[in-house]
């Protein structure tokens, strides 16, 4: 088995990548998606034996559960079981096990699952919910992370000290803080006292939702021996297998997760959200599939949210415009359970300088339990929220000392060898080029007249960086099996969420193996029983990590084929190559198609038996070089695998009569090392920009007393076809990644990281007003203009 050697980074090969790497081939999944044939979890058919589940949820943000009486519900004809926390005593959680599948003694947010019903129809299950009577003792809620850290705050998890936790998360027992991540680099106080300019701002970034168009759905079935099959819309089939099995006390080998196409994830279908509920219910009705699908309203208030953030920044530079100090305090609204929030807290901490070289940095990044929905990963994993404020401060600081914000960024951005906030050395990066190109693409420095007298125009830019935030040793694996005619099936465990990973993996496999792209099939749906292990489809890590595994598997298959043919031809493998599906010899000029030999081997001369056998290539990859960081200083050898960097620049027009902000054009420039499929990169940049615009201008989960007031598309608006700017430019910058396949690193999430601050900075350019925290709704901008005396 081939594994990529990673302890010492390999020098990147400069020669052009083999085809079809670097080509914009057609997506593998496009045809079945336009005909309606593509299967999503809700499309799977289970027949009349299937039961439907619905969930009884807490109406209180914080309450003790005194009594649950399900007798009336159980008596309703058609109801097959009612499940409560009593049958699921085990803990579940990705980095910190602080959650039960169903609440046991306490409910900690509005929507927390208290009981589950399975019935013969969804309607009966729904009706049964009203017949479950729950007695609560209402407890005071924590509704703001800054309140949550006060010494007198109501404790939401008094047992915090006893929870099982990953070794890079630092809970503070006796508080509401499941993780506190600190950076101490240089002497911040000294630097602040000597600075030529200092800015200070606080941003309260609201919760937003992921809003995939496909709601969550899971179907679970448990057989008589207690073996579980779970079908679901999932970004993390293997993590679900692991976490649910350990919560239920069963073997991972006895839990099979089948994951068809995901109708959009953006993080909310990562880890375990509602899937364990279906499994716990199915446990009680063995032999029958149990289906749980969330309504759109539940999608808004019960699943992972992008957590709110209260961020305080103090930032300083010298007279020449060199950043000298940053002093940051982040309070993350982690919600009722720590889940991903603890790691976003960490990610924000180790990236808390933004993509800048800053000698003195002090950061305290608190994850705080609140009685809000659970914080989950969302495209950007904390960075859009954190960099939203950071990049506005950078802009302000540049203007404060009279420098062009673009020049200021170029001057201060990280370079190869920069000493990062954690002490890690920066690798080669194209961020300077990204900043310049994005600015240039929107005509930076040139002010166009507005389209009407009651409008004002402005331009803004923001840079970004982001590392894959994951367990340090998150692994990938892949296999390649050849079919008789020389085509192949590629086994992988990463999920196709729409980002195009199946296509890109097929390209890398084809290029490595030497066969045409359309000879590669993906073994899908991903099924933990048959597919090779993949940690999770998150963190924009697949192209890089799973790509490495796929390349290793393809190399392994290729090696086996070449050795076989070399033996038969009495040549050495080094003289042979596979080109366009044919083995050719540079030495003898011989050539042979792959047909037959990849399964049946080759006959020895004179009918003297056979050599070879079915070709099966295997590969795996795991980063082995990420080290721990000191809990007090955040310093260590290598905090992360790498950083993807980039920038966005936008031009906006503000309507002085309504406050409406319209993004007229946007340019995205990102350094993804190598664009395996350039047009797929472009559409990630476009889609990310529009999602970023949507969160910048419209989106806010309106939480009042713990209740989501706008849990529908009518009340929670996202960008529509009318809101997307016509002029979107995507710029690919390629500074190769030393440990990436063909030099690639990820780019999926990054494209919405700088959008909010770029728009904020453009609004400032147009109006001279710092718009602060998003969303920059027409109302917010108008009222800010009124307050500033710009309009009446």
């Amino acid at each position, binding site marked *: 088995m081939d594994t990529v050697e990673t302890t010492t980074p390999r020098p990147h090969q400069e020669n052009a990548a083999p085809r079809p790497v670097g080509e914009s081939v057609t997506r593998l999944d496009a045809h079945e998606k336009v005909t309606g044939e593509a299967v999503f979890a809700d499309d799977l058919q289970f027949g009349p034996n299937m039961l439907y589940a*619905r969930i009884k949820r807490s*109406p209180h943000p914080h309450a003790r559960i005194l009594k649950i009486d399900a007798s009336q519900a159980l008596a309703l004809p058609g109801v097959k079981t009612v499940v409560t926390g009593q049958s699921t005593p085990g803990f579940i959680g990705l980095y910190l096990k602080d959650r039960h599948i169903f609440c046991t003694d306490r409910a900690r947010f*509005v929507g927390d699952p208290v009981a589950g019903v399975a019935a013969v129809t969804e309607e009966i299950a*729904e009706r049964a919910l009203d017949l479950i009577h729950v007695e609560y003792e209402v407890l005071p809620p924590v509704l703001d992370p800054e309140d949550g850290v006060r010494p007198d705050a109501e404790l939401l998890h008094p047992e915090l000290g006893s929870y099982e936790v990953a070794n890079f998360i630092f809970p503070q027992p006796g508080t509401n803080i499941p993780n506190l991540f600190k950076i101490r680099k240089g002497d911040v106080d000294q630097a602040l006292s000597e600075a030529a300019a200092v800015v200070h701002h606080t941003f309260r970034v609201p919760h937003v939702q992921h809003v995939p168009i496909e709601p969550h759905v899971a179907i679970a079935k448990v057989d008589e021996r207690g073996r579980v099959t779970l079908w679901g819309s999932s970004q993390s089939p293997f993590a679900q297998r692991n976490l649910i099995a350990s919560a239920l006390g069963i073997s991972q080998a006895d839990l099979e997760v089948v994951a068809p196409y995901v109708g959009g994830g953006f993080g909310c279908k990562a880890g375990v959200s509602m899937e364990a509920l279906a499994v716990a219910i199915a446990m009680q009705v063995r032999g029958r599939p149990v289906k749980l699908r969330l309504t759109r*309203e539940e999608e808004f208030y019960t699943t992972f949210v992008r957590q709110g953030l209260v961020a305080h920044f103090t930032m300083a530079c010298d007279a020449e415009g060199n950043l000298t100090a940053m002093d940051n305090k982040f309070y993350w609204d982690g919600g009722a359970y720590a889940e991903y929030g603890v790691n976003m807290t960490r990610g924000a901490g180790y990236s808390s300088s933004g993509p800048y070289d800053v000698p003195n940095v002090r950061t305290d990044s608190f994850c705080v339990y609140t009685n809000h929905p659970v914080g989950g990963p969302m495209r950007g994993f904390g960075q859009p929220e954190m960099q939203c404020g950071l990049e506005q401060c950078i802009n302000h600081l540049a203007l404060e000392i009279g420098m062009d914000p673009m020049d200021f960024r170029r001057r201060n951005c990280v370079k190869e060898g920069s000493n990062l906030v954690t002490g890690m050395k920066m690798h080669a990066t194209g961020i300077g080029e990204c900043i310049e190109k994005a600015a240039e693409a929107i005509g930076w420095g040139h002010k166009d007249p507005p389209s009407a007298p009651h409008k004002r125009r402005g331009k803004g830019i923001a840079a970004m960086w982001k590392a894959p935030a994951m367990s340090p040793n998150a692994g990938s694996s892949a296999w390649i099996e050849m079919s008789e005619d020389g085509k192949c099936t590629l086994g992988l465990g990463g999920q196709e969420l729409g980002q195009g990973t199946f296509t890109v993996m097929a390209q890398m496999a084809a290029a490595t193996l030497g066969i045409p792209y359309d000879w590669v099939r993906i073994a899908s749906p991903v099924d933990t029983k048959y597919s090779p292990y993949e940690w999770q489809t998150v963190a924009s890590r697949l192209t890089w990590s799973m790509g490495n595994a796929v390349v290793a598997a393809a190399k392994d298959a290729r090696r086996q084929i070449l050795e076989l043919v070399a033996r038969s031809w009495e040549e050495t493998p080094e003289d042979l190559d596979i080109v366009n599906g044919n083995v050719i010899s540079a030495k003898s000029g011989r050539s042979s198609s792959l047909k037959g030999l990849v399964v049946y081997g080759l006959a020895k001369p004179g009918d003297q038996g056979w050599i070879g056998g079915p070709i099966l290539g295997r590969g795996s990859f795991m980063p082995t070089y990420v080290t721990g960081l000191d809990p007090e200083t955040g310093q260590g050898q290598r905090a992360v695998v790498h950083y993807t960097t980039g920038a966005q620049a936008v031009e906006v027009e503000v309507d002085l*009569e309504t406050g409406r902000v319209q993004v007229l054009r946007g340019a995205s420039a990102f350094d993804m090392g190598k664009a395996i499929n350039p047009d797929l990169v472009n559409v990630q940049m476009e889609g990310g920009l529009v999602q970023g615009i949507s969160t910048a201008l419209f989106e806010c989960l309106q939480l009042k007393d713990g209740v989501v007031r706008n849990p529908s598309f009518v009340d929670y*608006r996202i960008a529509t076809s*009318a*809101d997307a700017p016509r002029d979107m430019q995507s710029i690919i910058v390629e500074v190769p990644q030393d440990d990436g396949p063909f030099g690639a690193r990820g780019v999926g999430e990054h494209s919405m990281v700088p959008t909010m601050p770029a728009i904020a900075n453009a609004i400032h350019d147009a109006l001279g007003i710092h718009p602060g925290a998003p969303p920059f709704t027409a109302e917010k901008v108008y009222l800010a203009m*009124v307050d500033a005396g710009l309009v009446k």
Partner: protein
Amino acid sequence: MREAHPGLPDFDYVRPADLEEASRFLAQNPQTARPFMGGTDTFVRLRDGFWKETRYLVDVKNLDGRSEITFDPQKGLTVGAAVSMNQVVANPRVGSHYSLLAQAAHRVASYQLRTRATLVGNVCNASPAGDTLGACLLFGGVLRVHGVEGFRDEPLASFFQGPGRTALKPGDIVTAIRFPLPVPGSVGHYEKLGRNLLSDLAIVGVTVLGHPDSSTASGYRFHLALASVGPVPVVLPDLLTQAPVTPEALEEAAGQAMESCHPIDDVRGSARYRKLMVRNLSRRALTRVWEGLQSGYRGE
């Protein structure tokens, strides 16, 4: 908190043979039976857990004559109750004589929703945010209503009583909405402010209809209606009749509109913002109409 169900609750679908049967059935089941047309409001409300007592949905759209738009050059326009928003938008007679109505109908939701949503349903639903209510009011709409006692007319001017509350009684079925001929030379404009550019519900909606009028000192008469700023549509009739129409006069009328409404805070916007937008969008709409009156513009 909205506790929406996964599907629609239990009810029986009833399709009466004629209007008499329909009115009788509705009157006999006043609490439990509801008429519907496109159902775009009805189904959403049922699914959201409102109207818990509903047991019968009475489909009144396929009764005779409900699905036509007729125009009589003497009497005006009649829009059958089952006429969809898209039919209103596409109808050439509406476009040439009542373009304001088409403009407002076009701003409702999305194309596919407008295939089913009806003008009459929008009126009967009596949502303060209803986009077409202003146009229907300013054109002097009169509902043709069939009740247990037979047909009668309900002028819109006295129709709206509160959010979702109207002058309709159990057994009443609106069969059409009729509009008299507009005053010659009328120009209208609908200004809708949503959170995104299209398809949102109105944070504020301003409908303006103006026409030349030789009996006024200004030579013109403007009427204005506001959506989403009170429990029922707010109508300001007979504006800008006294002094000559100038930018200052338009500004003053817009200020009058602002003073006349008492909006509330909700998820779409605050009362403070709404009031300011009533002024700004009224100014905008009045100005558009004023420019149109001077240039022959007839609304878009």
